[in-house]
């Protein structure tokens, strides 16, 4: 079984080391402009939020998969997990701050023993939309998860699932042997209860990210390909496809460095910088929460240990929407991943 960088005591499990790499090399030499310099050129520095509408809560880093590109460095050996007390704090804030969307992620969020409780309570609290970022295979990982599709349906959860490609080889190379086949089975189970079907209102979206050091293809074109191929070969339906660019952190950073792709990839991201994507970056309307209740500008910053600006309040217990909406967003060179080409976010392209 492949282990996390953390379990392997890999130097890149250290967030300071990742941040050092991202600020040195081609950026320190001036070969490429820093993200801050690039934002300054278009008068967008410091980057400021718009209004906070999405609460993206990472309820634990444990996962049944160990994907090669994972920015969380998730896996079965990760034990960090959110408790019910922290979830209660989230629920209180959702009510009080009028948060529209609760976006649950991990690891595999379904592995948190309080996952179902959290979803039910969020519904009672009146949140407009609950998203679960499911890796699909979790639904088949254990009989206790077999009823997840029914649970999602009952609670009107929007399911967003990773499926790197519509063919087995690329998917399995990135996510592990046999993942594609299990993902297809899980998608069938979701389709059977009504997900991705017309007029059910049950949304099933897929996420594509490139299986390597290149940018994603055009989102609409890929959505057409995925729809055609998944329908023809596997009789699967889904709603939208979101393309996400791989950000150079954690395991994907390890891959870039190990394969001598890092400099070229960073240059590719910098050259593809799109000023209009800056307007739509997700850190402007999303707050990321970690398992302990600390706040971050995004899930990537969470994995780099970059909490929100101190003056804005860094924990759920200090939550103050006005301070948070007036904060300066923390950036480093990984941010180029969200502004390249058509832009990238947890909801796909932004420009």
């Amino acid at each position, binding site marked *: 079984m492949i282990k996390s960088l953390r379990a392997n005591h890999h130097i890149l499990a250290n967030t300071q080391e990742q941040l050092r790499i991202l600020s040195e090399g081609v950026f320190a030499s001036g070969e490429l402009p820093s993200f801050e310099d690039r934002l300054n050129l278009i008068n967008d520095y410091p980057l400021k939020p718009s209004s906070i509408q999405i609460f993206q809560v990472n309820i634990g880093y444990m996962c049944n998969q160990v994907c090669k590109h994972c920015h969380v460095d998730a896996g079965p050996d990760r034990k960090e997990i959110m408790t019910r007390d922290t979830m209660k704090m989230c629920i209180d804030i959702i009510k009080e701050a009028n948060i529209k969307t609760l976006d649950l992620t991990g690891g595999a969020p379904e592995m948190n023993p309080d996952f179902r409780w959290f979803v039910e309570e969020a519904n009672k609290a009146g949140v407009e939309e609950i998203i679960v970022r499911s890796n699909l295979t979790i639904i088949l990982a254990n009989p206790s998860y077999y009823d997840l599709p029914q649970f999602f349906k009952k609670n009107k959860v929007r399911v967003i699932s990773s499926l790197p490609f519509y063919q087995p080889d690329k998917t399995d190379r990135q996510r592990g042997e046999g993942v594609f086949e299990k993902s297809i089975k899980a998608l069938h189970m979701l389709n059977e209860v009504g997900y991705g079907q017309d007029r059910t209102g049950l949304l099933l979206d897929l996420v594509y990210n*490139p299986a*390597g050091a*290149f*940018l994603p*293809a*055009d989102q609409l*074109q890929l959505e057409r*390909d995925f729809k055609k191929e998944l329908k023809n070969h596997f009789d699967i339906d889904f709603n939208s496809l979101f393309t996400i660019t791989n950000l150079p952190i954690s395991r994907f950073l390890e891959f870039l460095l190990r394969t001598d792709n890092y400099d070229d990839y960073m240059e590719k991201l910098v050259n593809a910088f799109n000023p209009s994507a800056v307007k739509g970056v997700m850190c402007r309307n999303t707050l990321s929460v970690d398992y302990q209740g600390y706040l971050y500008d995004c899930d990537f910053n969470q994995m780099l240990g970059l909490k929100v600006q101190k003056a804005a309040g860094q924990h759920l217990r200090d939550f103050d929407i006005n301070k948070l909406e007036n904060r300066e967003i923390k950036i480093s060179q990984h941010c180029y991943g969200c502004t390249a080409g058509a832009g990238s976010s947890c909801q796909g392209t932004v420009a």
Partner: protein
Amino acid sequence: MQTIPFMEKTYYDPADLKKFGDVAEFGPELAKKFFDYYGDVFKEGALTAREKSLIALAVAHAIQCPYCIDAYTSDSLEKGITDEQMMEAVHVTTAIRGGASLVHSVQMMNKSKKLSM
């Protein structure tokens, strides 16, 4: 001092691909015309940008241009083209190149038949 990396050791340096635009240094007007034309050629037209990328990849193999193979492999991946599709494109190149030799054997056969009793 201006450095001329690798030039004396090898004809090709991958880093030179990024310097393609620098050809304007020795002839800006024609370079501008060429790059404008190049940009227009690859725009979505009666052929899709994806089809054009695959044609470019196939031609790159025919002319055995390492810069072009590098550039259009990346470009193909970024257009959602699969490994299988890229390999099929290269087999089209190979078939045409091989066929171009083989079809000349008709000339060989004609000549041989004419000379032989």
